[in-house]
């Protein structure tokens, strides 16, 4: 049900502000940015090293927690960061209520699916790698 709404010059659309809480949104946008920045600087040398690697090298790279832990942390923080950014973009350009809500839901689902699939993929890697190595 849509809530009853009154219109007037000073009436604000209460339901289109990012998360109903501008300050928390602002702070989290910066925290996730700073965390992603630090992690990307940590990972840049390692990622540069595997730029021309073949499949086995990539598996070996992903089998080491010192690579996957910062990589997954980077994915977590940067996906949160881009989810927050997308909320601002949606609220800036999509004022039609239902479209706005639908896009926010889509953003939420997309970001969640991205984090979950990346997490499962990177956890799956080391196990499969160890199995191949054990069978040799």
């Amino acid at each position: 049900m849509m809530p009853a709404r009154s219109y007037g010059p000073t009436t604000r659309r209460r339901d289109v502000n990012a998360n109903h809480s501008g300050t928390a949104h602002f702070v989290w946008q910066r925290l996730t940015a700073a965390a992603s920045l630090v992690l990307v600087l940590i990972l840049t040398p390692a990622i540069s090293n595997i730029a021309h690697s073949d499949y086995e090298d990539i598996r070996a790279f992903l089998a080491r927690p010192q690579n996957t832990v910062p990589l997954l942390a980077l994915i977590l923080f940067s996906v949160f960061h881009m989810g927050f950014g997308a909320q601002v973009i949606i609220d800036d350009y999509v004022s039609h209520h239902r479209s706005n809500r639908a896009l926010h839901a889509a953003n939420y689902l997309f970001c969640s699916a991205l984090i979950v699939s990346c997490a499962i993929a990177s956890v799956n890697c080391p196990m499969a790698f160890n199995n191949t190595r054990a069978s040799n």
Partner: protein
Amino acid sequence: MDVVRRPRERPLSPHLQVYRPKMTMAMSIMHRITGAALYVGALLLAWWLIAASNGPAAYSTFQAFAHSFAGNVILIGYLWALIHHMIGGLRHFVWDAGKGFDLPTATAMAYANLIVPVILTALILFVIGFTSGVQ
């Protein structure tokens, strides 16, 4: 009697077309465009990880894309967009600290935001040996 209340027409604020383009304005827009591009580009990172976990066949599909001309263009564009957004973000950290709001500094930072990412992208491509690539 039911009275349908409609929102009163509100005056519109001036929009993009009335402003003379400025470097700060262009870099603000670029920050949003690169952010939106990176949102889509995150799928590439997910594809890479999922392909690596799925096995050699899935990974060679990803490699075929990455080594194609279109793949090169997209991945280099992704790298540049990431660095551009990162440098743009550093600018925002400076502003969050309450500094760099004066016009010369803001304009200088905007020009740096245009030039530095191009240099850093070229530097990274050089370091990973893009020119003497495997393909």
